[in-house]
């Protein structure tokens, strides 16, 4: 029975969007590491993305209210720092969603999400959020963000 409930929690978590990049969920972002049940309570293990990312606090609050709204009250959130979060935990499907949204997915070769050109200029290694850097495509001339590899 617990397994069914655990799957249900995963499904609910998959409806909580990343506050900054709403096309992907917190599950797709890779920050939910585990959902387990012990002593009548569910433990959801979360690995923060960047240490100081303000979105972390926001999605923790969103997760809490999503679970509560769906009648789950016996849970706790646990912050896990090790292993450190890495963009390698994103699936190819998630990366495709990012690209469609206009953000170049994490990759060592940055490709323009609009015209697929590899002629890219780095504008700044720091973008509007901690996880992104700013680039410009030399072919279609569009500026775009790249999800940094860490």
């Amino acid at each position, binding site marked *: 029975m617990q397994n069914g409930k655990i799957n249900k929690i995963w499904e609910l978590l998959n409806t909580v969007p990343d506050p900054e990049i709403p096309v992907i969920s917190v599950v797709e972002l890779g920050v939910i590491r585990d959902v387990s049940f012990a002593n009548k309570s569910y433990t959801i293990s979360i690995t923060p993305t960047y240490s*100081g990312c303000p979105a972390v606090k926001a999605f923790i609050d969103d997760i809490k209210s999503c679970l509560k709204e769906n009648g789950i009250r016996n849970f706790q959130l646990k912050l896990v*720092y090790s*292993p450190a979060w890495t963009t390698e935990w994103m699936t190819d499907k998630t990366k495709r969603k990012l690209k469609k949204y206009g953000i170049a997915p994490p990759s060592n070769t940055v490709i323009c999400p609009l015209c697929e050109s590899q002629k890219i200029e780095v504008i700044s290694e720091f973008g509007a959020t901690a996880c992104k850097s700013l680039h410009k495509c030399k072919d279609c001339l569009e500026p775009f963000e790249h999800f940094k590899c860490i």
Partner: protein
Amino acid sequence: MSSLFTYTLRIADSSLILGQRMAEWCSKGPTLEEDIAMSNISLDLFGQSNGFYEYAAQLDGSKSANKLAFRRNEREFFNHQLAEQENGNFGTTTVRNFLHDAFNLLFYTQLSSSKDETLAALAAKSLKEVKYHLRHSSNWLIRLGDGTNESNARSQEALELLWQYTGELFEMDEIDNELLNLGIGVDNTALKTQWDEILNKTLKKAKLNRPEDGYMATGGKKGMHTEYLGFLLAEMQFLQRAYPDAKW
């Protein structure tokens, strides 16, 4: 106070104070991209310090992470004096951060194999971000040093000014030694050779001269600070001092 608590607090304090310095650049950066970059770095540093403060709060139990950050006085802060030095011009900030980032990269690399699991995990996390910070400060140092006569002169001047605060980074006191012997802490002295390598390589590219070792300031780890820290704390702690336990 246990040695581990003090050790953790020292790491947290250096991150917080340097983070606050970077936050002072917010809305005053030389370009919009740089403004964003410095605010991002500031956030990373605040986040790192928060992780270490939370751990320190667990170890001690009498003070929360917020109280550790906002309700201690100058003499109770154990950050490196280098971290508290004023922003000055953009060159001064670049040099200060470069000197500290290079140290942090080596320090966190070692600390990530600490026998203390929490410190090791926090260090591994911080290390990923510090790599970016060092790349940022190194790139700017090279651009400024190898830029105009003016930018070169200002960077060299900053290097001469801040050099006296680099000795402290590699010091070992009784707490450092105790934790090193337990397999928890880092041998700071042993980081010097690699730090020199990073420095010499980057300074060469930046066409800047490595200053001669002279008088070296010390005392940050013991709560002795330069006159700048008090003013920094006055601004940073104002709200929690004026409205204790305020929440929003």
